[in-house]
């Protein structure tokens, strides 16, 4: 027989293991490792803190009393999980984007950062959570006592064991829940330990179930017969309780602080919901699979009057299967500890953020507060809160005597915490929900829950029996368990029905009658339309809030895009990461103030920033109201400004377009006369010399050769001109077919330089940056070469430097290959730059043989190749830039 000592040793060993796991996971997460720590599996397993000791032990007890009714507690969450797409997904997205730290924070954030609401939710959560923690303590103590009864040494004392259990859990929660202040409130260590506990409790319950079905009953068939033959063997369920409990458990699943903690706050990745949506219901299904068999076998085997809540332990013990009983004990222990730890963490966050900190800050008014101080204060507040909450649980357990009254406390807590549901769902899906509505609804629900369920259920007669019998002041219609004279409803159903329906009605009516503040409307829009907005973290919580406050204020004053640009630039300056918000350093704040003072005036800007940065008596709400008003005024004047600016811009564009049109039309007019001139000039020479050769007698052989050569040259010039004209017209009409090929830029340039400099002409030294030219090209190489040749020979012809030199350099700029041709001459005068690419446009004295079509052809070619050629002003000499899209190059790879 396992002694109590062995049990305690196993317990301690198990706790040490949990410590180790939590510590290792924290270390791993801190070093950025352990991807599996953020896996959907861990997320799903952490959700199973829903299954507390109340589940582990109580489900069997419940089944032994009321048959299949226990299953409702798991069906509700299943329905919530399968509707994750439009429910939990939104909750998680909002929680992440608003950096929500708890359910109280979420509600308060939605309704314009109302701390009153946060305090209400916190009180509700603590009130509902304390008995629930007591229930866990009770279950651990009870399971100890089962072993103690069997232990001959009999050293066990119930009171002290509860105390040590409570103290141990508090230490664990403090150690891992409040080690550091993370802006996102994530605790990888605790979550991993909880995931491990989830595996343990599932394994334990399955082991007991398998033992019962195959070890005792002898298989599935006999088990089914045994079930049908048992006292709960017939389908019997109260319709009201069935539907109410499904609904209630669904509501509580979303509203419970500990569930919110693991589901939303600890969530690392929204996509984990996808896995949890089926894996968590599966977990619940497995947890409840063997509940009925265990209950039936327990009813059969165990003596009359034994506690069915402990069948999970007592059946293996009675069969002499000590190791299984031990495993089962560890399973129950796991369920209880994980629930208590997470609840304590979640509640302490709420208490410290919404109760302790506001009070502390109020008392500190007037003194300069250092942010470092605040962090230690917050941590201290949380640690003390955890200890206090655990103490509450402990004393509640002692005072209530640990009797059967605790058994129903799970559902009572569910009903209490569900009062948040209307405000939560309304806040998520209805923009018209207001703070007043939420407050009124919560208060109504909260009051009804206390009046109809909590107080009548309490032993010791806080409500005199006469009130329960006849109602307060003898008003029968106000009887706590039969409101409005409707009797005979199950007390639980009665409470849930009345409290939630009146809560919802009060919430809706008060919302419709009240008017929300600007901040509330802003938050309402952000919550309801969270999927339309970005997933960028925003919010006013914690120490990181300053930048966000500044950002939101700046957006309202400067407009969204300029504000974002400003913050982005600042973020880049600070850490090179434009995706994040910048830290509110003094330099940044100063710059921001300057920026804002341009819009609202220096004094106002200073005051506004002072309010946010310097901690303040004026609320953010007031600031936003001011910002709203000034933004409206600014908008009006800037609209006027924008209009006049647009008008003058349009006028300028029109003027420019007109000037260009006139110029182009003049050029088109001149085109024919240009062509005529270009054709007639060489023809003049040809005609003149051919007549000379024909008519003149006695020309010397030298003269004849010379004149024939002139005729020949001029004929060639004519041909070239006609070729160019033809080339241009083909290019312009778009009928050109490209002959694509692959080569490096170096090769194309080599060829172009040698053929451009091959003929006679002035010496031109070409400087190249060869390493930059190793760019593979996929393009029409001949055409590209033609462009290069043209640019090089232009430099050769027109560069007016004493020692003409051309620099060719290639770069990779913004997805384009850019090749610059820069010579050391005087360049092209600005007034001519716009026209150099036009046909027959020639700059200065061009008699060097060109017809003025070269650059026009270049432009057309580059257009066909998907790039462009442009004049690059301000480079000293004449500078042309050829750019080709990089896509041509990638296509080749």
């Amino acid at each position, binding site marked *: 027989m396992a002694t109590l000592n062995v049990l305690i040793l196993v317990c301690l060993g198990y706790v040490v293991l949990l410590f180790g796991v939590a510590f290792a996971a924290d270390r791993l997460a801190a070093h950025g490792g352990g991807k599996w720590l953020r896996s959907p599996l861990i997320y799903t397993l952490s959700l199973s803190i829903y299954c507390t000791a109340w589940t582990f032990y109580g489900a069997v007890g419940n089944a032994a009393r009321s*048959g*299949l009714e226990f*299953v409702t507690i798991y*069906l509700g969450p*299943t*329905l*919530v*999980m*399968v*509707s994750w*797409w*439009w429910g939990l997904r939104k909750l998680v997205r909002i929680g992440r984007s608003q950096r929500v730290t708890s359910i109280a924070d979420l509600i308060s954030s939605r309704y314009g950062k109302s701390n009153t609401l946060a305090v209400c939710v916190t009180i509700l959560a603590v009130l509902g959570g304390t008995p629930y923690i007591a229930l866990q303590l009770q279950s651990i103590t009870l399971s100890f006592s089962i072993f103690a009864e069997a232990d001959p040494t009999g050293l066990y004392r119930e009171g002290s064991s509860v105390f040590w259990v409570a103290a141990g859990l508090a230490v664990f929660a403090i150690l891992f829940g409040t080690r550091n202040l993370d802006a996102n409130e994530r605790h990888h260590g605790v979550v991993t330990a909880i995931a491990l506990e989830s595996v343990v409790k599932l394994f334990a319950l399955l082991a007991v179930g398998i033992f019962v079905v195959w070890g005792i009953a002898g298989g599935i068939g006999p088990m*089914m017969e045994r*079930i*049908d033959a*048992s006292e*709960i*063997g*017939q*389908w*019997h*369920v109260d*319709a009201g309780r*069935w*539907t109410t409990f*499904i609904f209630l458990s669904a509501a509580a699943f979303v509203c419970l602080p500990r569930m919110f903690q693991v589901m939303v706050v600890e969530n690392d990745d929204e*996509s984990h919901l*996808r*896995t949890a*949506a*089926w894996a968590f*219901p*599966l977990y619940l*299904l497995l947890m409840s*699979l063997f509940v*009925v068999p265990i209950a039936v076998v327990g009813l059969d085997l165990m003596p009359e009057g034994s506690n069915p809540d402990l069948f999970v332990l007592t059946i293996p013990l009675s069969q002499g299967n000590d190791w299984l009983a031990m495993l089962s004990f560890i399973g129950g222990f796991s369920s209880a500890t994980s629930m208590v730890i997470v609840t304590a963490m979640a509640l302490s966050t709420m208490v410290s953020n919404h109760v302790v900190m506001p009070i502390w800050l109020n008392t500190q008014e007037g003194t300069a507060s250092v942010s470092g101080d605040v962090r230690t204060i917050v941590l201290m507040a949380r640690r003390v809160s955890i200890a206090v909450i655990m103490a509450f649980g402990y004393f509640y357990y002692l005072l209530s005597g640990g009797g059967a009254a605790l058994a129903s406390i799970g559902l009572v807590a569910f009903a209490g915490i569900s009062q948040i549901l209307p405000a939560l769902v309304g806040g998520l899906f209805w923009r018209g929900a207001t703070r007043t509505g939420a407050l009124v609804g919560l208060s109504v629900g909260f009051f009804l829950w206390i009046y109809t369920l909590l107080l009548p259920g309490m032993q010791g007669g806080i409500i005199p029996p006469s009130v329960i019998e006849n109602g307060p002041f003898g008003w029968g219609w106000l009887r706590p368990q039969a409101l409005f004279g409707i009797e005979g409803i199950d007390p639980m159903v009665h409470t849930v029905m009345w409290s939630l329906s009146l809560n919802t009605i009060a919430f809706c009516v008060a919302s419709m009658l009240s008017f929300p503040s600007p901040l509330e409307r802003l938050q309402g829009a952000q919550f309801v339309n969270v999927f339309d907005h*970005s*997933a*960028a973290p925003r919010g006013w919580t914690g120490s990181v809030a300053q930048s966000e406050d500044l950002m939101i204020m700046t957006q309202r004053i400067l407009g969204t895009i300029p504000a*974002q640009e400003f913050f*982005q630039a600042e973020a880049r300056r600070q850490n090179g990461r*434009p*995706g994040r918000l910048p830290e509110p350093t003094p330099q940044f704040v100063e710059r921001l103030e300057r920026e804002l003072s341009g819009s609202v005036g220096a004094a106002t800007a200073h005051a506004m920033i002072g309010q946010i940065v310097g901690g303040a008596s004026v609320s953010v709400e007031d600031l936003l109201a001011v910002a709203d008003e000034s933004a409206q005024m600014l908008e009006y004047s800037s609209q006027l400004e924008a209009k006049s600016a647009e008008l003058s811009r349009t006028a300028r564009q029109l003027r420019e377009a007109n000037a260009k049109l006139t110029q182009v039309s003049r050029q088109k007019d001149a085109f024919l006369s240009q062509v005529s001139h270009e054709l007639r000039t060489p023809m003049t020479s040809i005609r003149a010399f051919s007549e000379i050769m024909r008519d003149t007698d006695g020309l010397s052989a030298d003269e004849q050769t010379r004149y024939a050569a002139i005729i020949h040259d001029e004929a060639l010039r004519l041909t070239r001109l006609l070729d160019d004209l033809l080339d241009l017209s083909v290019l312009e009409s778009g009928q050109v077919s490209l002959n694509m090929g692959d080569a490096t830029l170096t090769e194309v340039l080599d060829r172009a330089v040698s053929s451009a400099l091959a003929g006679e002409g002035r010496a031109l030294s070409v400087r190249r940056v060869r390493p930059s030219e190793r760019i593979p090209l996929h393009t029409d190489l001949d055409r590209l070469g033609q462009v290069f040749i043209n640019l090089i020979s232009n430099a050769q012809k027109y560069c007016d430097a004493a020692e003409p030199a051309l620099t060719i350099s290639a770069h990779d700029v913004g997805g384009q290959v850019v090749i610059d041709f820069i010579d050391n001459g005087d360049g092209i005068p600005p007034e001519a730059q716009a026209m150099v690419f036009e046909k027959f446009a020639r700059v200065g004295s061009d008699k060097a043989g060109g017809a003025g079509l070269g650059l026009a052809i270049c432009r057309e070619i580059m257009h066909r190749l998907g790039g462009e050629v442009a004049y690059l002003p301000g480079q000293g000499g004449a500078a042309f830039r050829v750019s080709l899209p990089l896509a041509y190059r990638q296509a080749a790879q």
Partner: protein
Amino acid sequence: MTARGEGEDRPSSVRPLLFLERQSYRRRRLVDAARLLPFLGAGLLALPLLWPDETDGAEALPLSSAMFYIFACWGLLILISLVFGFAARRMAAREKAEPETEPWQR
């Protein structure tokens, strides 16, 4: 006959568009299905309330059958949710391929 042949000859310009539209249509119906799933679940789980009860005087349903029904419904919900989860993952992967937000917002 010829017209049809021509249509099949140039799938590159026509098909992808059709394909995408069908995809987004499927996507929307999938989301509809996900919305309806909890209602299906609620309906299935409300059904046992109509079963004969011992209080009705009629022969009550054996608990084993009731268990079988409820766990089967449960399993069905899990299965549909699993299928939708995988479909949603493919959807998300496709959406990620089409950038839609500004860099700042990311």
